[in-house]
């Protein structure tokens, strides 16, 4: 074994992120043209880290994550290019077999609507222990024991009895707890959460958020949290990236994103959080409509709705660092032409 090899093996892979996505492009081929849902997206997440992906519906945040898991329905969907390295394996090139070994074992997902994400025809027990039966050599009885333990862990009361129920006998919040227990039962290294609180009551939202936080502390997994709600991100994620029109607009550590906002879209999003506005102020909504992704957009996709728009915004844009670990896709911010901090609070 030569020196270089040994040094690689000896050193823990600190430099290598758990998941590294580069130049991901996903589109949908519909009868009315090609919809470029994700357009040249690159990001990475370290072990145990928490990354929030924020954007309105249609921004490509969910499609990004479904592409990583290869859960895009093909056709009409198609992953056009890019790589997604997870522990040395390119998820986008992996064989179905390789993929199955990773899904549900090393990368788990929880979904937006707990009402439709559980199979109504199967008992909770069947669905909950399925990842164990698929990925581990374990007897049914042992798997059931772990299933009950997992349900207790996520706070389902009377777990030993309720594990025999069907999904429709559970409330939405309880179902999302089941989904979380199911996703975490194999102790994955990465959890992708696709707006898991959107369909739930506000109080239940907070409980679910706390639950995921607690489980993350216990299991040490990395979490990608997809949401349209900057407020959720603020309390939960260490890093955030904001997406719009299939592209990343800005990426930074959470605090930095709020304090040193470096993209007009991020600022507009912040302004539209009611809780961050002075009492009595009119609710802010971003003027205009989200972009039609079936048309090719060369420049900044937010330009038509941006108050700082200039001719140069029609030129191709690129995500660039303006500080260590703080990147923006806004050309004008990159050039220092506008400063968003100063007019944050009028």
């Amino acid at each position, binding site marked *: 074994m030569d020196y270089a090899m040994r040094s690689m093996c000896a050193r823990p892979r600190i430099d290598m992120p758990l998941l590294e996505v580069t130049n991901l492009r996903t589109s*949908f081929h*519909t*009868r*009315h043209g090609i919809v470029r*849902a994700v357009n040249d997206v690159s990001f990475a997440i370290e072990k145990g880290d928490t990354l929030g992906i924020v954007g309105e519906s249609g921004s490509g945040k969910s499609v990004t994550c479904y592409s990583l898991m290869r859960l895009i329905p093909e056709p009409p*969907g198609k992953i056009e290019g890019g790589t997604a390295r997870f522990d040395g394996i390119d998820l986008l090139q992996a064989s179905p077999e390789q993929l199955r070994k990773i899904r549900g074992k090393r990368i788990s997902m929880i979904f*937006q609507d707990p009402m439709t994400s559980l199979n109504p025809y199967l008992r909770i027990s069947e669905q909950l222990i399925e990842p164990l039966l698929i990925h581990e050599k374990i007897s049914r009885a042992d798997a059931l024991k772990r299933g009950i333990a997992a349900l207790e862990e996520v706070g389902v009361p009377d777990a030993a009895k309720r594990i025999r129920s069907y999904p429709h006998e559970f409330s939405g919040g309880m179902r999302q707890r089941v989904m979380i227990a199911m996703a975490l039962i194999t102790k994955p290294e990465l959890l992708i959460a696709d707006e898991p609180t959107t369909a739930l009551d506000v109080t239940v939202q907070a409980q679910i958020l706390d639950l995921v936080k607690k489980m993350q502390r216990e299991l040490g997994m990395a979490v990608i949290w997809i949401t349209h709600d900057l407020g959720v991100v603020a309390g939960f994620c260490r890093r955030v990236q904001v997406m719009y029109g299939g592209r990343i607009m800005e990426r930074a550590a959470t605090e930095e994103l709020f304090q040193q906002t470096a993209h007009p879209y991020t600022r507009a999003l912040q302004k539209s959080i009611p809780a961050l506005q002075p009492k009595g102020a009119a609710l802010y909504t971003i003027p205009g409509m989200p972009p039609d992704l079936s048309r090719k957009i060369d420049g900044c996709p937010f330009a038509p709705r941006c108050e700082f728009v200039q001719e140069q915004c029609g030129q191709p844009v690129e995500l660039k660092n303006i500080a260590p670990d703080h990147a923006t896709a806004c050309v004008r911010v990159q050039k220092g032409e506008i400063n968003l901090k100063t007019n944050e609070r009028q």
Partner: protein
Amino acid sequence: MSAEFPTVTQHAGEIEPGQSLWQDAWHRLRRNKMALIGAVFVALLAIACFVTPLVAPGAYEKTNLALGAAAPSHAHWLGTDILGRDMLSRILYGGCISLSVGLAATLVSVLIGVLYGAISGYVGGRLDVILMRIVDIVYSLPFVVFVILILVVFGRNIVLLFMAIGAVSWLDMARIVRGQVMSLKKQEFVEAAVALGLRKRRIILRHMIPNVLGIVAIYATLIVPSVMLLEAFLSFLGLGVQAPMSSWGTLINDGRKSMEEYPWLLIYPSLFFSLTLFSLNFLGDGLRDALDVRASKD
């Protein structure tokens, strides 16, 4: 899947805004080639069937015993039967009977179905539950057996035939009309009529029925093939149309008996009948898809 995945429906850009339901449906129907071909075929066949007896009356019963059962030729395109009668004439004449019975029976079933469904849907409550339960039960019975009983008991004439067939084919229609009426009931103009103090009977007749008529017409096109099938079925068993009249069912049955020697006597009536059923089914399905209405139990 996730709401964010673009679907085809999101981009229904071809259809201009402001089009009515009917224009919209017409648009969709025109794109459905099979439905259009079906419509043309049925139209041509119907014309041929109904015009032939007028143009050449009696051609179908002109026997030519010397000729006997002859294979298709220039003189007789589809051959002749055992008595030397021209098959094409007989098939067209039989089609006339089959189509007439089909239409008449459909009319009967539509009348019963619309009335039953409209009352059930409009009155609602306990009556609705009972009426729909009855439909469920009747649905699960072998009703053809009862048609046969009715024909046996009350005699086998053609009027009774389509009355009996119509009387057992109204179930789907009742369900559809009920569903339509229930959704119409909640709409404003009906509520306005109620507020004006109009009587129930009047509301049903003047407001409900005109509004469900379009959907009824479409479902009726799907009833036509099913009642034609039933008529042919009964005639095949010898319990339907009686000699000297002949429908496609009786022709097929006659053909079956001599198919070893004269296969064309079986094949041509079967072909005409199957193609007609095909066309009517495609047309009906096309119309239904164009308007996007569905029979549902609830």
